[in-house]
C-alpha cells in the first residue's frame, strides 16, 4: 500500500470520526445538560424537589453508565432504525454514541453544578430571582468552566467509543486501526491511524483546557 493510499484512508476515516463525534457531542451536550440540570433540580434540597423523579432518572443514568458500549451499540439497533431509517453507517452510529455519552456527561454536569456554593444559590433566591434565572444565570454560568472541562472529557470518551462504530459500519479512524492493523496486519496503517487519534485527542484536550481556563475567574 502506498503512502498516498494510506493518506486517503486516513482522510476518509478522519472525516467519519469528526462527523460522528461532532454530531454526537452536540446532541450529548444538549441532552446531558438537560438530564444533569434535572438531576440537581429534583434532588431533595433542590429548586424543584421531586425525589421519585430524581430516583428514576438516577437509575436510568446508572443503567446507561454501566452497559458496555458494544452491547449498547447492538441493543439500540431497532431504535436507531426508527430514528435514522437505517441501522448501519456513519449516521446510524451517532445514535448509540449519543445514548452512551448522555448519561456520562449528565453525571459530570450534575457534579459541576453541585460545586456552585449553596449560599450563592441562596443569595439569588433571597434576591427574588426566578428558578429559570437561578438555573441559567447562577448554576450554569458559575459552573461553566467545569462544564467545558467535562465536555472535553466527554468528547474524548466519544472518540474512544467511536472506534467501535465499525461494528455497525460507521467507519472512522478507530475502525480503520482495527480493520487494517488488527485484522490485516497492515502495521503502517495502524500506526498512522493511532498517531492521528493521539493528535486528535491532544488537540481536543488543549482547546478544552484553554477554554476552561479563560472562563475561570477564581
Amino acid at each position, binding site marked *: 500500500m502506498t503512502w498516498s493510499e494510506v493518506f486517503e484512508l486516513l482522510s476518509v476515516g478522519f472525516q467519519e470520526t469528526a462527523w460522528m463525534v461532532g454530531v454526537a457531542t452536540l446532541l450529548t451536550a444538549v441532552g446531558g445538560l438537560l438530564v444533569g440540570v434535572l438531576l440537581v433540580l429534583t434532588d431533595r434540597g433542590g429548586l424543584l424537589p421531586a425525589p421519585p423523579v430524581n430516583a428514576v432518572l438516577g437509575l436510568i443514568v446508572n443503567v446507561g453508565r454501566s452497559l458496555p458500549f458494544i452491547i449498547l451499540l447492538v441493543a439500540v439497533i431497532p431504535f436507531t432504525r426508527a430514528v435514522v431509517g437505517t441501522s448501519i453507517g456513519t449516521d446510524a452510529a451517532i445514535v448509540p454514541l449519543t445514548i452512551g455519552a448522555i448519561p456520562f456527561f449528565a453525571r459530570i454536569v450534575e457534579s459541576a453544578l453541585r460545586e456552585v456554593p449553596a449560599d*450563592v444559590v441562596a443569595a439569588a433566591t433571597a*434576591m427574588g430571582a426566578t428558578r429559570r434565572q437561578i438555573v441559567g444565570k447562577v448554576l450554569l*454560568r458559575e459552573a461553566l468552566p467545569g462544564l467545558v472541562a467535562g465536555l472535553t472529557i466527554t468528547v474524548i470518551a466519544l472518540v474512544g467509543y467511536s472506534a467501535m462504530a465499525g461494528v455497525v459500519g460507521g467507519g472512522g479512524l478507530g475502525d480503520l486501526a482495527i480493520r487494517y492493523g488488527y485484522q490485516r496486519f497492515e502495521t503502517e496503517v495502524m500506526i498512522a491511524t493511532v498517531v492521528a487519534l493521539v493528535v486528535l485527542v491532544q488537540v481536543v484536550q488543549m482547546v478544552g483546557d484553554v477554554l476552561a481556563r479563560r472562563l475561570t475567574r477564581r
Partner: protein
Amino acid sequence: MIEISGLRKTYRSRKRSVVAVDGVDLHVGEGEVFGVLGQSGAGKSTLLRCVNMLERPDAGTVAVGGLELTNLRRERLRVARHGIGMIHQHFALLSSRTVAGNVAFALEVTGAPRAERKARVAELLELVGLSERADAYPAQLSGGQKQRVGIARALAARPKVLLSDEATSALDPETTESILRLLLDLNRRLGLTILLITHEMTVVKRICTSAAVMRDGRFVESGTVAGLLRQPGSELARDLFPLDTSASVATAGGGVTIVDITVSGDEADEPIIADLARRFASDVRILSGSVETLAATRAGRWRLALPGAPEDNSEALEYLRKRGVTL
C-alpha cells in the same frame, strides 16, 4: 418593620431532629438596627433565613413591612423578596461576574430595564465606595471589598430592610469596623432597617440600637441596648460592658460598701461620681469601670467603694437611684 411571633423551626432528618428556633417573638421598628447575639448553633441563621423564607417556619408568623410572608404564593414571595436585602458571611458573590455584573444581577432579577441598570449600578458602587473596582472579579478583591459588593447588591432593589448573616465574621477587626461604619451610615442616610445576627459583641456595641441574646433557639434577653444596660443582671450588659468584679478593697475600720453602678444616655456624661463625693463620702473610690460610646447611647459602668457599712450609706445610694443610676 419586621414582626415575628411564635416562630418555630425544626430540622428533621431520619436519625434525629434539631429544634433550631424554638418560639421567637421579635419586633424591629423602622430605622432600627437590631442585633441577635448568640453562640454558634444557637439558631441565629435559621431565624434570619426564616425572615425571607429561605427556610419555611414550622409555626409562627413573619411579616415584613406589614406583609405577612408565611402564606404567600411563590411568585408573590419572590417579588416581596426584592424589598428585603440580605448579606452573607462568605459574601456569596457570583465568581463569573465582575463587581458591576454582580450588582447588575440584583437589578436583572427585578426586571429593571437595561438602560436603568447601568446608571443604578454606578450609583450603588459609588455608595459603597467601589467605583474604581467596577470591572474587577470577586477573586481579585479583599474580604472587605467583597462585602461592599454584597451590600451594594443587597441594596440594588431599594429594600427597606437589610438582613445580615454574620456579615463581618470573616473579616479582620479593621475591615469589620469599616463595614460596620458603612452599615450605620446606610441606616442613618437611607433609613434602612437592619436585622443582623452575630457572635461578636463588638458588632452589637458598635451599631445596634436594640439587641437580643439567643440561646438554644430562644431569646433569653431582648430589648433596647440602653434598656438592657439598666436592667440589673442583664447578661448582655455584663458582656457588652465587662466590669472587673474581682476588684476589691481592703476593709478599713468601719467597713466598706461596694456598689456597681451603670448609667446610660445623657447621665453618662454628667459628673455623677464627683457629685456623690461632694455630697456624701469624700473618700469614694473607683475600683474599676469605663465609659463607652455605643451606637445608640453613651454608657458608663463603675464599681465604687464607699467608706462605711451599707447602712451608713443608704442616703448616698438613694441619691444615686434618684439620679437615674442602676445599682
